[in-house]
């Protein structure tokens, strides 16, 4: 260790950061220490609100608007960032410390070509002239295995796919050959098949240039592939730190163990009801298009009472479009939707109130799906009044009953507003609102993907309990196969608007699979630190992710 002491690149001691809210400063990071050596990759993991990004940005001497570094020291390569001038701190950014953001699509400026954004820093710091910088960019694009490395930089961000943008952003971070890169959830917004590509590219390039990195994520399996050491954070405090192997095999703290155990929730698969049972929802040969662009091709499946059908696939595969067809928001161009044996009019406009009541939806972003200015009791009460005609005392007792059902104490939450609730509580309100219409079928559109793992597990358990008690049928749209494994009875795999494979869950998770299902399944990161290497070896370097998908 003594020899390594010289190689310390970043030394953070007792870092405290405050955030401004409700007209006062509140501490959000409570004295965190961090030591990073040259060429080392440290994973920072924790739930949202743990302070991961805030600490990552502080390593660049940067605090977001409304935040400030209140105490502690941040020493980068012998330079104290908390006391040095803003100009000196700025001179480090982009040149010696670079940042890779969560959403490359939002973090590239839509008004400029990708390569012009890439070369901005090297030209600004006079490291390279424009032409040299462009050639260097193309070389980096090639190393990151971007298609057409000579031309791709001359496109605008919206002309390039999300996975490619994320790699272009990694290339941009490399432009000045920094000593340290902060990766802030770089693959969270990507599909599994794209994620594996980006992970491989990031790991290669960080190794090639011996760059140190802080890798921020909430996904343990991902961090296991990338990091040498892992630090677990909870609400601005360090929980524990250890090298990756030890952390995975032998976590010390209870909180870490609970994180590790999250993926264990699993319920048994239920068989289809036999005989002549009528499906609650039957989608029959449905095709649909947006304008002249066809998006769904001949989709058929049935959902029976008390059963969950999970619809999986990458973004753009037609999962949500199928839901829009069922609810009548997007009338199909051909085929029909049958509910409990009755054919539905194609458009919601011509459905009766009773027909509309049968199918309800729960949305991905509870934040935007609940009106922030309306009280909880009115949010839940509105469908109960509209569909069931409840009023006055009856309405109030029904709302109380619904709140009980979603495990929120009625007296405490009845007259509160959505912004006062946590993410998981908001999603529970979304569930109660759907239940208020007393539907027999609920579409859950990525309901857990915006939530932390522990909270998501709670929601899954609640949905499972409600299904048992109320005999509900669920259509569960997700891109997360772990969720499918835990809650589904039947699975529908979609790709480019077509159903690739469908069947009972156990069958889907046992080989042989359709090649695309196989690709999806094998792209889900596992906790084994050697998983990425193994998968890449199996697939061959030129045959990962998007390349394999086509």
């Amino acid at each position, binding site marked *: 260790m003594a020899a390594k002491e010289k190689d310390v690149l970043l030394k953070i001691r007792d870092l405290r950061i405050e955030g401004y809210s409700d007209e006062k400063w509140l501490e959000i990071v409570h004295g965190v220490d961090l030591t990073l050596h040259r060429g080392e990759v440290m994973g920072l993991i924790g739930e949202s609100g743990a302070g991961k990004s805030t600490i990552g940005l502080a390593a660049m001497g940067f605090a977001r608007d409304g935040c400030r570094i209140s105490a502690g020291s941040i020493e980068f390569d012998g330079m104290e960032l908390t006391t040095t001038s803003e100009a000196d701190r700025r001179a*480090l950014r982009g040149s010696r410390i670079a940042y890779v953001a969560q*959403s490359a699509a939002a973090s590239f*400026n839509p008004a400029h070509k990708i390569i012009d954004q890439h070369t901005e820093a090297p030209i600004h710091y006079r490291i390279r002239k424009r032409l040299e910088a462009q050639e260097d960019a193309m070389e980096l694009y090639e190393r990151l295995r971007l298609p057409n490395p000579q031309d791709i930089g001359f496109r605008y961000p919206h002309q390039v796919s999300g996975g490619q943008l994320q790699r272009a952003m990694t290339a941009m971070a490399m432009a000045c050959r920094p000593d340290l890169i902060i990766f802030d959830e770089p693959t969270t917004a990507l599909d599994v098949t794209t994620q594996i590509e980006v992970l491989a590219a990031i790991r290669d390039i960080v190794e090639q240039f011996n760059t140190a990195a802080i890798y921020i994520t909430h996904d343990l399996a991902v961090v296991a592939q990338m990091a040498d050491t892992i630090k677990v954070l909870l609400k601005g405090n360090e929980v524990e730190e250890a090298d990756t192997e030890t952390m995975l095999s032998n976590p010390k703290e209870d909180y870490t163990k609970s994180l590790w155990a999250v993926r264990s929730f699993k319920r048994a698969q239920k068989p289809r009801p036999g005989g002549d049972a009528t499906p609650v929802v039957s989608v029959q040969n449905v095709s649909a298009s947006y304008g002249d662009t066809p998006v769904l091709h001949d989709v058929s499946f049935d959902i029976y009472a008390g059963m969950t059908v999970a619809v999986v696939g990458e973004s753009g595969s037609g999962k949500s479009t199928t839901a829009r067809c069922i609810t009548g928001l997007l009338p199909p161009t051909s085929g029909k939707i049958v509910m409990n044996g009755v054919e539905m009019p194609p458009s919601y406009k011509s459905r009766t109130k009773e027909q509309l009541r049968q199918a309800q939806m729960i949305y991905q972003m509870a934040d935007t799906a609940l009106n922030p200015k309306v009280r909880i009791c009115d949010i839940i009460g509105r469908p109960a009044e509209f569909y069931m005609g409840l009023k006055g005392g009856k309405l109030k007792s029904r709302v109380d009953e619904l709140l009980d059902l979603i495990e929120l104490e009625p007296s405490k939450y009845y007259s509160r507003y959505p912004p006062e609730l946590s993410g998981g509580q908001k999603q529970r309100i979304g569930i109660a609102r759907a239940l208020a219409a007393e539907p027999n079928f609920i579409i859950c559109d990525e309901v857990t993907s915006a939530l932390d793992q522990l909270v998501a597990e709670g929601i899954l358990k609640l949905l499972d309990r409600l299904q048992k008690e109320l005999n509900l049928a669920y259509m569960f749209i997700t891109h997360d196969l772990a969720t499918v494994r835990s809650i589904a009875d039947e699975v529908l795999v979609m790709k480019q608007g077509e159903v690739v494979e469908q069947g009972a869950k156990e069958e889907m998770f046992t080989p042989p699979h359709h090649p695309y299902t196989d690709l999806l399944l094998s792209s889900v990161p596992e906790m084994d630190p050697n998983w990425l290497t193994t998968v890449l070896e199996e697939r061959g370097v030129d045959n990962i992710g998007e390349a394999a998908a086509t």
Partner: protein
Amino acid sequence: MTDVLGIVLKRLGLGVLTLLVISILIFFAVELLPGDIAQAVLGQGATEENLKAMREQLGLNEPAVWRYLQWLAGAIQGDFGSSLISQKPVTETIAPRFANTLFLASYAAVIAVPVAIILGVIVALLRESIFDRVANVTTLTSISSPEFFLGYILILYLAVKNPWFPAIASLSDDMTFLELLNRTFLPALTMVLVVVAHMMRMTRASIINLLASPYIEMARLKGTPAWKVIVKHALPNAWAPIINVVALNLAYLITGVVLVEVVFVYPGIGQLLVDSVTKRDFPVVQACCLIFAATFILLNLAADVGAILTNPRLRHPK
């Protein structure tokens, strides 16, 4: 780009329809004015026979709807009729006045638009500073004061107390261009003061609105200097709302100048409109209003096209 052409054609079609509706509204509004055109033309001393002959000559005895249709038939062929007062063709009466108004509007716009945008960028950069507040208060004061009041203040300080510029902006044919600029400086400055605030504040707001975007944070984290973050990363994405406000203000420079023209006795279209309304000179009023309406329609269309052309997603489709 064919989409843009489609939008332009569609909007031009709707614009023609709007003009038609406006012409109907104006015609009947003028009809509703009390008094008699023949009386206005001939004066108080006219005898009953003279008035009768005059009405006959002007066609005032025909039903209103018929007169409107006659006018419309002419207008479609480009003939907007003759002034009821001077008997000269309307186009001949309006053309020189409208040219004067356009000149004054361009003069003001050439100063106001760059000043407003540059100031807007500077206050966005120095937001919450003293400079920001002073610029805000000053421009707000100028936008809140009526134009005629601003005009008189400028005359008081820049023409009377310090005789740098002429107080009256009357024109003659033998002036050089520099003389012309000097003569019309005060009315142009008045209008600049009125429109700068609006455009500056919109520039500031639309830039600041973008500062929370991830790509702005990214630019900062690449070590980009603050001014470059604003000019290179925020401004190119802020054009759409700025262009809209600029277009609205340009329209105002052409249509809203009546008071300024009166204060500085400037022979523009605004004064002509006021005179014609008092004399119930319908063909002139109608033509002036249609010009104003067309100005609004064309500038708004230009703003929409501008907003499309500055959007990289629409300019460089996949």
